[in-house]
């Protein structure tokens, strides 16, 4: 790590950052995921949401690629990004402060459309539709009790085709079969004293909410595994109810397991769910690997060497589905550029790079981005 640190220091003003000791490979490797995009949230009101790209074939970390790929843009990607996903041959960035989803061509990162969705939070996909969760509630009357909305977007026309009202301040979603599961947070309701505690179930054939499953307060992240488990994290109520992680069986729509695990962020890879938790009250970070077959936490360590202390403020986690390399983002002081750290599947430090402000989401790309 000392080597990495000196390397970073010596190159803090240069854009590309090569991992230390990483020589370009001689033989041509064919990657299923030749690179990844990283979304930097940027602070709200600063218009500093940026997009980085890392290429596994030439090991080049490119910072803030959006302006160069989109010279017609005035402000860059926008204000305060919240979600980033790859679907088909497109890249979707949910930019919360800009109230839009930017849909980009995966090969060029060129913006194809910006779909305006007020207070948009997260995105999920099925067939030719994207589903975007939003805190907004159009045409509301009772402002203190406004429910959130899921917007259904046609990924070929980039138009909103339908909306569906869900719980309070919906965050992430997961799709299994023909059901869309929505984690309702109630994040705006701390002032009323009650967070939302339920997961909404939407039947995608009718696009209607058919059920609400009682889980835990302040639901946040969601993931789905191959066995039809919906993993949903609760941030607790920041006083007497601690954070937890629940498993919902998608077919019975019942909570089948509740783990005493803080999953502030999570990433599914194969049969393992990688989680991290950040407890801001005592400023501690925890990690965990959960086996989806046993629904048990099999390890509370992801980083196996002594480099974990280099991370100041863990803000995101992503596991490469192909190599199982683990990526952890560090938001540092939230006001200056953060870092992304790469670890091998064994948890050994591989490399680190400087990102934009508040690095959060990583989306592995199926197409190598053109230069």
């Amino acid at each position, binding site marked *: 790590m000392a080597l990495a640190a000196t390397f*970073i220091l010596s190159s*803090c*003003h240069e854009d590309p950052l090569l991992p230390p000791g990483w020589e370009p490979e001689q033989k041509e490797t064919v990657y299923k995921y030749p690179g990844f995009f990283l979304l930097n949230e940027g*602070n*709200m*009101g*600063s*218009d*500093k949401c*940026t997009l980085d790209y890392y290429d596994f074939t030439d090991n080049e970390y490119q910072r*803030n690629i959006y*302006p*160069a790929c*989109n*010279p*017609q*843009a*005035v*402000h860059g*990607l*926008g*204000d*305060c990004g919240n979600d980033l996903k790859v679907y088909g041959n497109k890249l979707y960035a949910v930019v919360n*402060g*800009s*109230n*839009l989803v930017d849909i980009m061509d995966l090969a060029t990162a060129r913006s194809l459309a*910006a779909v*305006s969705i*007020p*207070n948009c939070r997260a995105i999920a996909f099925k067939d030719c539709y994207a589903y975007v969760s939003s*805190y*907004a*509630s*159009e045409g*509301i*009357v009772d*402002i203190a009790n*406004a429910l959130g909305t899921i917007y259904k977007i046609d990924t070929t026309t980039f138009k909103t085709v339908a909306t569906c009202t869900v719980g309070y301040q919906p965050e992430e979603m997961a799709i299994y079969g023909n059901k869309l599961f929505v984690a309702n947070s109630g*994040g*705006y309701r*701390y*002032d*009323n*004293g009650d967070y939302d505690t339920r997961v909404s179930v939407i039947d995608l054939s009718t696009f209607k909410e058919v059920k609400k499953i009682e889980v835990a307060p302040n639901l946040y992240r969601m993931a789905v595994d191959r066995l039809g488990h919906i993993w949903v994290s609760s*941030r607790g109520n920041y006083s007497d109810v601690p954070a937890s992680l629940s498993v919902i069986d998608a077919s019975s729509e019942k909570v089948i397991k509740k783990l005493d695990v803080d999953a*502030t962020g999570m990433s599914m890879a194969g049969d393992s769910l990688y989680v991290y938790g*950040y*407890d*801001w009250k005592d400023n501690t970070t925890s990690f965990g690997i959960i086996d989806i077959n046993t629904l048990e936490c099999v390890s509370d360590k992801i980083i196996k060497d002594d480099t974990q202390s280099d991370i100041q403020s863990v803000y995101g986690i992503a596991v490469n589905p192909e190599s199982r390399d683990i990526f952890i983002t560090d938001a*540092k*002081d*939230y*006001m*200056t*550029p953060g870092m992304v750290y790469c670890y091998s599947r064994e948890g050994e430090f591989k490399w680190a790079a*400087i990102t*934009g*402000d*508040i690095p959060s989401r990583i989306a592995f790309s199926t197409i190598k981005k053109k230069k």
Partner: protein
Amino acid sequence: MKISNLCSYFALTVAAIFSAAASLFADDNLFPADTLQRLEESVVVAYRQPEKTIPAQTMQGETLKKLNSLSVADAIRYFSGVQIKDYGGVGGLKTINVRSLGSQHVGVFYDGVQIGNAQNGQVDLGRFSLDNMESVTLYNGQKSTGVQSAKDYASASAVYLRTRKPVFKEGRSYSIATKLSGGSFGTFNPSILWEQKIGNKVSNSFNAEYLTTTGKYKFTYTRQDGTDTSDVRRNGDVRAVRVEDGLFGDMKNGEWKAKVYFYDSKRGYPGAVVREEPGRFRHEDRQWDTDFFTQASLLQEFGRYKINASIKYAYDYLHYLSDPRVDVSTMYVDNHYRQQEGYASMSHEVEIFEWWDIDLATDWQYNTLTADLRDFAYPSRNTLLAALSTSFRFRKIKIQASGLYTFVHDATRVEGAASEARNKLTPTAVVQYIPFDNVNFSLRAFYKKIFRMPTMNDLYYTFIGNKNLKPEYTTQYNLGTTYSNNWMYGAFRKIDLTVDAYYNEVENKIIAMPTSNQFQWTMMNLGFVRIFGTDVAASTNISICDKAFTDVRLTYTYQRAMDCTDPKSLWYKNQIPYIPWNSGSAVIGLTYGRWNLNYSFLYTGERYNSTANIPENYEKSWRTSDMSVSGTFDIRNAELKATVEVNNIFNQRYEVVRCYPMPGTNFKIILTVSI
């Protein structure tokens, strides 16, 4: 409200001004010969210059009026060492940062009594008018003249706003000045200043002002490919009423003042200009403010002993509304905050020998804050301050040393939520050396350590506040020289030159940090800043002929403000946000008879909007030029002054704060009738 009464009142004022203007054109005698003499009479109003022991910059009535300034904040931009935060428009928040210590370290005193804001520690200088202002003075360190309250010792730097004490023409018992101004952004701003003599020793000054503006202006951004795109800044509208009444009394070897101040406003908050679908979201956050205070002070001399007593009560109300029915993208916020403040001060000065004074001041202040937030702590704060100061005046050397003791005790309605009580003793030392007997040249130095208490928002705001916060300390070291001279004849009539170099430290800087997500932030004592700087100010008065003279005022500031919080950080020792390395100003006034031409220029050099001094965070330098022309005419017994202002003449596109574009070229016309 009294708006309807006010409207009819202003209609009358407008009618009066137009009839006055009509009579102007009937008047043949537009240029009386004695104009210059008369002008000089009106400039100097028994004003006591601040002494030069401590760096101080002052602007007086006429100078202030010549600047194209709408408020006190606009005028202070022309002082060296000052950076102003300006979010654009007439109604946007304007706060000042002196020598990079942070805006909450600037004390603002109105007629000798501090204007507080226990809630957030920031005084919006955009809300104080220059209409009734006699002088605006900025002190680095602390004021070092006269018998002063403990509060005068209690901030790292201080702005003193001094309202005009009524002065009457020979044989007159009143004077009335009505002003009407209007211009770009749909701005309409009438005001009246009515000064009345009540007996021999008492006079009253009544000042009222109404301001309305749409706040709309066009701004332009350049895309990455070099093409331009324009939009209109909306929802920056303001309606404000300010009414003040002051009584000024003279006594044998003393004086007293009493004042009532009322301000009521409603305004929009336009928010940051960020990427989004143009025109879809209205960003209509709104704020209502009602501020009221009343204060009185008394100064009495008994030979070698002087006493000063002050008392104040203040009430501030703030209502903030973000309504998702108006703008679906926002979070619903509807909060009401009420602050009250009680203050009393007693200070004494004893002149033991002609060369030795001892001062003792004791202040008490009580603050409360209520808010309709869930789990709100309902804090109240008792502050006791005691300052002991001594000064020695020898022929070549002046020394002042003071110690300030502060005791702060907070209580909350919710048990156990209060921050622990604080006891602090903080010192200041000031030295001035005058090496030559017949040259007005001096060397000066000061050292000051002081802190600011965390504000009630920092400590108690539901979820965000952190009751364990420690006070934020500043330490200042200053070395400087001054030179001044006056001449009765020749071209140069006056020269003033000051150069100061300083080193400052800010410890335990209070910084907002997000917690587990961006919706919830908390406050922490995290920052450590080191600042090296130089302030230069020069002014001169050049006589061109009997009728014409020019005033020139120049300032330059260099600041190296380093974030030294974390030696392991990649951005260690980078320049702190929004502090330019170089900045400066120039004000040039040309007076010919009763005509005046004024040019003012501001320069802010390159800077970064974040401690990470990287190209993405780079903010370009900007320079603005403002110009005004005014003429004064007599119409029978009245005097009419007409001013035309053009601001940002070269239509500079700039932002003081990222995502808050500033207006381009704009205009204003001001008519003042005085009787």
